[in-house]
C-alpha cells in the first residue's frame, strides 16, 4: 500500500463530491460507502444503475451526481455498461469525440441484483473483459421493497419474509468468490466505516483496466433495525468480529487488507441489530449463535492456517 496517496484519514477528501438532499434513509450505509467511492472516482463517470434503493438518488429533475447517469433495469446494468463502453470506444476510435470526453463506466446495484437477477449479466461482462467498475452496495436483503430475504441475507437474520423464531434459514452467498472465480482484474470488499481501506481500494481499481468489482457492506438502519447513528459502529464491528472480511483479489491472489487479529465474538456484532434480537430474547439461541461463530472461525482458520 506504499504507493497510495491515502496514508491516513487526513489524506481523504475534505468535502464530498456527491450532492446532498437525496431520498436515502438517515444512516444509510450504502450512501456512506458511495460518498467515499465517488470522492475518488470523480465526475468523469457514467453510473449505470439497476433497480434498487440507489435508483432513487436520481429522481426527475434532480441528481446528486456531477457526472452522468443511466438507469437500466434490475437484471442488466452490466449489459448497459457494455453498450456505453463500446459506444465510447467506437466514438474515440472514429475520432467523433476526443479523449477528454471519455468516461469511466460504473455499474451501481444492490445485492438483490448483484447476487441474483443480475449475476448472469455480470458473469458475462467479466468474461468479455469489459472495462468497467461494478459497485454492489450489499444491505443483505431486498432493501427497497422492505427488506425481504435475498441471496445476500446472512443466516439467522430476520427479514420481511423470514419473521419466524429462527430468521433466515439459508446462508449468505459468497459473491466475492464467485466473481473472483472469473479471474477479473480486481475484486474487493469494502465498508463505509473503514474509509481509508475503501479509498485505497477505489484508487487502485480506478487506475486499472478491465473488470473491477467492489462489494460494499451497507449497514441498513431500516432493514437491520437499529438507530441510524450506529451505522459506523456496526460497520466497524462487522470487520472486527470477522463477519465482513476486508480483502482484495488481484493478480490471481486474494489478500486480506485488514486482519482482525483479536476477533471480537460475533454476538457483539449481532446484538447491535434488531434483525438478530430473536437470537438473544426471550431466551438465548445458543445453537444458532454458535453456528454463526463457527462459520466465521472456519473462514479465518482457512487463512490463518
Amino acid at each position, binding site marked *: 500500500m506504499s504507493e497510495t496517496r491515502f496514508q491516513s484519514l487526513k489524506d481523504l477528501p475534505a468535502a464530498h463530491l456527491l450532492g446532498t438532499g437525496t431520498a436515502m434513509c438517515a444512516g444509510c450505509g450504502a450512501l456512506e460507502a458511495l460518498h467515499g467511492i465517488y470522492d475518488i472516482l470523480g465526475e468523469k463517470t457514467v453510473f*449505470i444503475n439497476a433497480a434498487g434503493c440507489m435508483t432513487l438518488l436520481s429522481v426527475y*429533475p434532480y441528481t446528486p451526481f456531477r457526472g452522468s447517469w*443511466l438507469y437500466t433495469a434490475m437484471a442488466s446494468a452490466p*449489459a448497459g455498461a*457494455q*453498450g456505453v463502453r*463500446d459506444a465510447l470506444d467506437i*466514438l474515440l476510435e472514429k475520432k467523433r*469525440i476526443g479523449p477528454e*470526453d471519455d468516461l469511466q463506466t460504473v455499474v451501481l446495484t444492490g445485492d438483490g441484483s448483484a447476487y441474483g437477477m443480475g449475476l448472469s449479466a455480470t458473469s458475462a461482462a467479466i468474461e468479455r473483459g469489459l472495462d468497467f467498475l461494478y459497485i454492489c452496495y450489499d444491505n443483505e436483503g431486498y432493501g427497497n421493497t422492505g427488506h425481504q430475504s435475498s441471496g445476500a441475507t446472512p443466516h439467522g437474520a430476520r427479514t420481511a419474509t423470514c419473521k419466524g423464531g429462527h430468521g433466515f434459514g439459508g446462508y449468505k452467498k459468497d459473491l466475492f468468490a464467485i466473481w473472483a472465480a472469473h479471474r477479473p482484474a480486481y475484486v474487493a470488499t469494502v465498508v463505509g466505516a473503514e474509509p481509508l481501506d475503501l479509498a485505497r481500494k477505489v484508487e487502485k481499481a480506478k487506475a486499472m483496466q478491465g473488470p473491477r468489482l467492489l462489494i460494499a457492506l451497507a449497514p441498513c438502519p431500516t432493514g437491520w433495525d437499529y438507530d441510524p447513528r450506529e451505522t459506523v459502529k456496526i460497520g466497524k464491528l462487522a470487520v472486527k468480529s470477522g463477519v465482513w472480511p476486508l480483502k482484495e483479489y488481484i493478480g490471481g491472489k486474494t489478500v486480506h487488507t485488514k486482519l482482525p487479529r483479536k476477533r471480537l465474538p460475533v454476538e457483539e456484532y449481532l446484538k447491535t441489530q434488531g434483525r438478530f434480537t430473536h437470537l438473544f430474547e426471550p431466551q438465548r439461541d445458543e445453537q444458532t449463535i454458535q453456528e454463526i461463530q463457527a462459520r466465521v472461525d472456519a473462514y479465518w482458520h482457512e487463512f490463518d492456517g
Partner: protein
Amino acid sequence: MKRTLLTGNAAAAWGMRLAGVDYLPAFPITPQTEIIETVARWIDTGEIDCRMVTLESEHSMITAAGAAAATGVRVFSATSSQGLLYGMEMLYTVAGWRAPFVLVNVSRGLSSPITLEPDHNDIFAARDSGFLQIHCATCQEVLDSIILAYRLAEDERVRLPVIVNLDGFYLSFTREPVEIPKSETVARFLPPFDPGNVRFRASEPVSQAVAVLGGGPYSYFRYQAHLAAMNATSVFEEIGKEFEEFFGRGYGSLETYRSDDAELVFVMLGSFATKAKDAVDRLRAAGQAVGLVRPRLLRPFPADAFRQALAGKKGVAVIDQNLSAGSGGILHRELTAALYGQPETPPVLASFIGGLGGRNIGPEDFFGIAAETSQAIAAGKTPPPRLLFSEGELKDVRQLQAIAGISPEKPGRDA
C-alpha cells in the same frame, strides 16, 4: 438493373451494412442467426467497420443496444420469437430512452408448444412497447425497410427505436432477386447519425432514464413518446416518397393490390400477403371483385390510410397470423377500432385466424374466406371469428395422437 439473389436474412444484413452501422450487440436464435453470422463475416474480412459483441441474452442485448444508442452511435440488432420476449422488459425500457436504433425481428411462433416456424404472436407482443414496427413482404422490402427505419427512427420529430419484421423461413430463408442500392446513394439518403442531446460526454454530464415520482411527470413522458410515434405516420409517408426519388421504389404505410374497385378486401400482414395477392388474381379471374390491403406500418397504426383504403367496401376479411387467446385476431381488433363510427365504414369486418406456426394459407383457404365473407355481406352480419383448420389437418393430428397413445375422447386431455 442488377439484381442479386438474397435470402431475407441476407437482405437484412445488407440493409444494416448500407446504413453504416457502428455497433451490433447480438445473440443467436433461429431463424435470425444468419443475419449476425453474415455481419460477423463482413467484420472479419474488413468489409465493414462495425463492432459486434455477443451478449449472454436478449435482455442484455437490447439493454446494450439502447445504452449504445443513448451514448450516440448507430446501432443495429436482430432477434426472433422467444428472444424478443426474453428482452421484452428492455423493449419497453429503451423505447422510453428515446434513443433511436433498428432491431430486426424474424417472426416465429411462441412457446408453448415450442416451434421454429413463423407466425406473428411474437411481434404483436411488442405492439405496445413504444418501438415502431415496419412489416415486410419481400426480401427487397427487408433491405429497403432497414434503411427507411433508420431515417424514421432518427428523425427529430420521432426519435424512437424501430423494429423491422420479416417472417421466419418464408422470407428469412427464401432467396429472391434483390437490388442492392449503391452505398454512396444510401449515404446521401441517410446522413450520419446525429444523437442530438441524447448522448454521454464527459464535458456535458447528463442523467438519462431517471425515475419519476407521481403520475404527472410519468404521463407527460409517456404521452411524449406516443405523440412522437403518431408523428411517424406522416414522416414515414414523407421519407417513403423521398426513397422513391433516390431508388425508384416508393413505400407508403399501406400496400394496396387491386383494391380500388374491389367490393371485398383481404387485410394481411407480412409475407403471406403475397399468397393473398395470388388468390386475389384467381378470384378476379373467377369474376369476384376482390382486393388486398397490407399494412407496412403496424406502429404507428395507419388508421387514416385504412379508412381511406376501405371506405365504401362491402366487406373486409382480416386474416390474422396471431391469436390472442380469449379474444381472437389482434389486427382485426385494431382495424375494427380504427373503422368503427367512421363514414363509409364497411358493414362486414370478418376475422380469420390462420398461418399459425408456419401453417400454410392456400388458395382454397382464400376462396373459403371470400365465400364466407360474401355470405356475411348478403346476410348483413359479421360472422364470429373463424380458426382456419382443415379436416385433413385434424386427421394428421389424430394420427400423431394415436402414435403418442393419447385418446382424444378422454375428458380433460383434448377438446
